[in-house]
């Protein structure tokens, strides 16, 4: 039990590292999708007994994070004719090292935090913090708008892992509400990306900081 959860969490860590080093958009989207799918399985493993609500939530999460959201992103990639290379502000190696530093810090931090550890796995909090940090890194160090969407996706994954600590306390309705928000958010952003692309020639978020009359 602990072994299975821990190995899933390690795979999540590996995906984090891979995403920080990935140089292709497609690889990034696939990695984010697979991370979402792995995470959706976890509540099923953690639940004391399987009830149909848990199964439905897991099914909806897998469908949304594993199929629909990646499809929307791929479509946005195609429609907006975005180049397939990820454009980093700081190089891939420095971001990976930053991510590694973040992971080490979250391991240290998780030991200091005054929260009750998870009964099954002591990796939940560090992996959650490290995933949130990975999301932030992707948000801040990648230039393209679509990479920032993926950054948000990873950020949400991190919060989702943290939510597993409160699995008994958080009603599934809230979980589904968050999922819906995420879905709508990504849907809207992909439409916005399409429109920006039609109006302006560039999708570079750096140009958002420079105002012109």
């Amino acid at each position, binding site marked *: 039990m*602990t*072994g299975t959860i*821990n*190995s899933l*969490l*390690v*795979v999540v*860590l*590996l995906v984090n*590292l891979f995403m920080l*080093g990935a*140089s292709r958009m497609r690889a990034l989207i696939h990695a984010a999708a697979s991370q979402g799918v792995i995470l959706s399985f976890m509540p099923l493993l953690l639940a004391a007994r399987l009830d149909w609500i848990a199964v439905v939530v897991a099914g909806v999460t897998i469908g949304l994070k594993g199929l629909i959201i990646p499809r929307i992103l791929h479509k946005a990639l195609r429609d907006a004719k975005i180049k397939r290379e990820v454009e980093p502000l700081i190089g*891939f*190696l420095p971001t*990976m*090292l930053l991510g*590694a530093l973040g*992971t*080490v810090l979250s*391991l240290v931090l998780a*030991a200091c935090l005054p929260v009750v550890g998870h009964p099954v796995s*002591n*990796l939940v909090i560090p992996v959650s913090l490290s995933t949130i940090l990975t999301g932030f890194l992707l948000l801040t160090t990648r230039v393209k708008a679509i990479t920032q969407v993926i950054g948000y996706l990873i950020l949400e994954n991190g919060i989702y892992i943290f939510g597993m600590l409160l699995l008994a306390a958080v009603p599934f309705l809230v979980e589904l509400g968050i999922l819906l928000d995420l879905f709508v958010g990504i849907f809207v952003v992909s439409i916005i990306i399409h429109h920006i692309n039609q109006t302006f020639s560039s999708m570079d978020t750096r140009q958002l900081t420079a105002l012109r009359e």
Partner: protein
Amino acid sequence: MALSLINMVMHLVLLAAAPPLMLGLIQRTKALLAGRKGPPLLQPYYDLYKLLRKGIVLSKTATWIFRAGPMVTLVAVLLGGLLVPFGTSAAPLHFQGDVILLIYVLALARFFTSLAALDTGSSFEGMGAAREVTFACLSEAALMLGLLVLIKFSGSLSLNTMLRAPAMHAFAMLPVASLMLAAVGMFIVLLAENARIPVDDPATHLELTMIHEVMVLDHSGPLLALVNYGAAVKLFVFAALFLHFVPPVPSASPALNWAVFAAEMLGVAVAIGLVESLMARLRLTHVPTLLVAASLLCGFGFILMLR
């Protein structure tokens, strides 16, 4: 006593005879995935036999170092093979602290390969040697961090104890998370150290990209046979090392242990063939990223052990 003797003989026979078979299996896997029939499984043995009967052409600047290079390399990797236990059976040679000897004999092998490359006086081979040692800096770090995980787990500095520690404990007792991280890191090290595809392409002679092939370009005849055989042994040793990071299949009978080990080694060969078929070789500037990632993974594994 008789049992340990049989184990030792098995170890020596496998170490001496099996390595080229792994190369054959990798080639066969790649060929099948590419829709070809591929060379026979024993082709590497035929190649070695062919090369041994040929003459040697020496560069004008070559000294005794050039001739000693492949021999020292081969002896060093064979010594490494004696230190690493195969599967759950004990290694023929073991003492406290031999993990450091392993790291150094592997470094010695590399040192002499690159020295022989420099000795030819060709700037092209010098470039290959430079690449080899540059990447070695990074892959050795990953190797040491990976070994550190098992040292911490077993509390022993002898390869014989530390590498077999996962097999000696019940699955529930294992630090699965650390072992998984280290296993991924060690697999990258295995590919990098043996000039396999994401790092180096063993099948091409493209000037701009190759590493190991450049260094051995001037070797011919029996010397090339020694180089190729040494490379195969090195692959075999690294694969045996890597297998200890994969949670083991427990079995009671020693005969079964050897069967499991052989099956696992063939599995590693197929896995390498799959990676080589499915991945493109990385651009030379991206190789350090991959190797740093391997070090980070092994490092994470070690940090998780410390908690």
